[in-house]
């Protein structure tokens, strides 16, 4: 790059103002650098992303830099917009779970639970969801919370050069995903939580595998504290970075670990319990530094709290073996006793026997449910739950039909990215990566 005053690309007769930068000519780097140094008043506009390894997917950042200092920064989103909300308006209420699970793909269970709780409120069946279904939801959510925090800590560590934190993070996450695969059939995109309950009970070996996962996590979660908590490089990169105080969090709609890192113990699991969280014993973790390091510590300790809940849920599930996992209402309940056959398909032989050979009524219900779907009384509902990132909520509107009239997911990352300027402006360019990592946005959820 060289600076000169002749613009080779100007139209004939066009006057050129100021310096023209071209890639022609080359030159000695020392000359270029000294030339730039003389013009110290100039700022440089840098486009970071959308294809950048440290932007958690396809986040675009437009950064105006003075040297290495960020003067202004504006996030640009929408690169992963797939029209999920619009698509849902053309599918049945049950099919909706297949769509919402693809939003925040690092914490898919939370999308499903938020959506299903909202649909259940519209249906007025919140009290009729079986306890075992709620317990399974809690179990899956808390395991998913650990997995999501592992990704947040792992990729956040990788971005500042702590590669081991990422490799061990993904190792632990793999154990959880294996369990998810055993329960739901897939590592992600589960569509496991359904209006009225869950798609299937735990497999026969589920509790045993769960105990293995718990033992594994018990053994390995302390490694993160040992690696990071007092690591001088880690602290040097994280402490005092991305500071956002409580009032800024309120103003910008920021929740989750970012809010709790300011010392405010706001957790919807405690404040507005759902799915029976009031029956579990756990603490809300806070930190008092409002910075990236505080958020890391909040996430780290929250994994322990989640593990506590997972253990309690395991005991509860062991005690309730054999109880139903789907609402007892033939007009809403999809078959939830699936089995994996030799062809890998998940038919339920019991259910097929029942509808084909025993009950005409059941066959009609099955046919109506699968082709048409159930109707949901007209109205709207907004149900927020505590996802690993913060408040995820589902606003559903029904016109009394078999499809959502409107479904909006309030993703925490969408709000959190609004706070990028307040966290990064005035800081160093390299700290932008740390601040965004500490916000833990997942673009699938942000863009939907």
């Amino acid at each position, binding site marked *: 790059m060289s600076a000169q005053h002749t613009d080779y690309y100007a139209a004939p007769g066009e006057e050129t103002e100021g310096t023209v930068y071209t890639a022609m000519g080359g030159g000695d780097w020392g000359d270029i650098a000294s030339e730039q140094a003389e013009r110290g008043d100039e700022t440089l506009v840098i486009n970071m992303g959308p294809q950048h390894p440290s932007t958690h997917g396809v986040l675009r950042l437009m950064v105006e830099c003075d040297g290495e200092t960020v003067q202004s920064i504006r996030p640009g989103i*929408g690169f992963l917009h797939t029209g999920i909300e619009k698509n849902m308006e053309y599918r049945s209420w049950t099919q909706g779970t297949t769509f919402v699970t693809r939003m925040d793909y690092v914490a898919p269970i939370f999308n499903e639970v938020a959506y299903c709780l909202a649909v259940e409120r519209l249906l007025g069946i919140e009290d009729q969801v079986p306890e075992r279904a709620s317990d399974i939801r809690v179990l899956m959510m808390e395991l998913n919370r650990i997995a999501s925090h592992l990704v947040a800590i792992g990729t956040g560590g990788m971005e500042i050069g702590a590669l081991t934190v990422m490799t061990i993070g993904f190792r632990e996450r793999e154990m959880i995903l294996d369990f998810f695969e055993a329960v739901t059939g897939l590592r992600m995109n589960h569509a496991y939580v359904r209006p009225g309950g869950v798609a299937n009970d735990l497999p026969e070996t589920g509790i045993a595998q769960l105990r293995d996962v718990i033992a594994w996590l018990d053994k390995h979660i302390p490694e993160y504290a040992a690696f990071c908590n007092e690591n001088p490089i880690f602290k040097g990169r994280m402490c005092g970075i991305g500071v956002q105080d*409580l009032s800024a969090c309120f103003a910008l709609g920021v929740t989750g670990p970012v809010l709790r890192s300011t010392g405010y113990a706001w957790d919807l699991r405690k404040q507005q319990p759902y799915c029976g969280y009031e029956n579990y014993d756990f603490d809300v973790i806070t930190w008092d530094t409002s910075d990236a390091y505080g958020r890391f510590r909040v996430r780290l300790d929250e994994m322990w709290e989640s593990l506590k809940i997972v253990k309690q849920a395991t005991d509860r599930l062991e005690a309730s073996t054999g109880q139903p996992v789907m609402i007892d209402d033939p007009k809403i309940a999809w078959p939830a006793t699936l089995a994996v056959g030799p062809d890998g398909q998940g038919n339920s032989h019991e259910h097929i026997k029942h509808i084909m050979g025993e009950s005409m009524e059941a066959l009609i219900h099955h046919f109506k449910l699968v082709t048409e779907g159930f109707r949901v009384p007209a109205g709207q509902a907004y149900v927020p739950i505590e996802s690993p990132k913060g408040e995820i909520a589902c606003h559903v509107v029904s*016109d009394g039909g078999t499809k959502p009239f409107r479904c909006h997911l309030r993703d925490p990352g969408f709000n959190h990215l609004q706070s990028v300027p307040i966290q990064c402006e005035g800081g160093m360019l390299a700290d932008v990566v740390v601040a965004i990592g500490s916000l833990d946005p997942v673009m699938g959820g942000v863009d939907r």
Partner: protein
Amino acid sequence: MSDPKLPGEEKSIDKPVMDPEASPKAGVEREDAQPDPELTPAIIEAPKPIAVKKGMWGSGTGDTSGYGRIVKPVEWPAPSAPPYGSWFDGVHDRLAALVADPFIKVVLDRGELTFHIPRAKLVEVMQALRDDAQLRFEFCASVSGVHYPQAAGEELHVVYHLQSMTHNRRLRVETSCPEADAHVPSIVAVYPAADWHEREAWDMFGIIFDGHPHLTRILMPDDWVGHPQRKDYPLGGIPIEYKGTTVPPVDQRRSY
């Protein structure tokens, strides 16, 4: 659980809380989901059907089932009159005292309170909801647009979901504008969190938020034409041929 909290009771939130036990225990009971079961709010006007569905198979299909004459009006939850029970009355009365004649209607449905507000009063109402000690809805969680093509004169709705962390309450505020004059005042000055949400509502529904600092598209490309989540905007898709038969795109299939 904890002692009952009255509206207006102050909780300090400006001191960082180190100990989770010492944090504000604002109504651990889920107040928003538990209205007084004894109290059924009186319905002040009959629900207005916003659409009518006919037959079993939607419109445009040959219906040989004999159910073609079924007529089903679609009715929204009816507006309710006070008393609403729980904390709802306190908030309703306080807002009515602070802002002159703020409500078009109040709907209490499924334990959730919705204030329908004329758009001219929106900013005033939001300011009062945020700042008054008895209301203190300091957190705007979400803003979503909804398009009701059948509701003549109020086709486009904007729905705000507010959270009072001080009192642990949730409130929904809804305003509307006609499609021909799709202007709603921006509340970014009151709730900065609404910034991107309003941009999304503009992008997806074409609602113009007057006074927004930077109302540009956020999810769709800058040069996109149209507002995709309006009901008259097609989903798109092509018919798929499979074993001699054709499966139409999803937005042209039979609807019930």
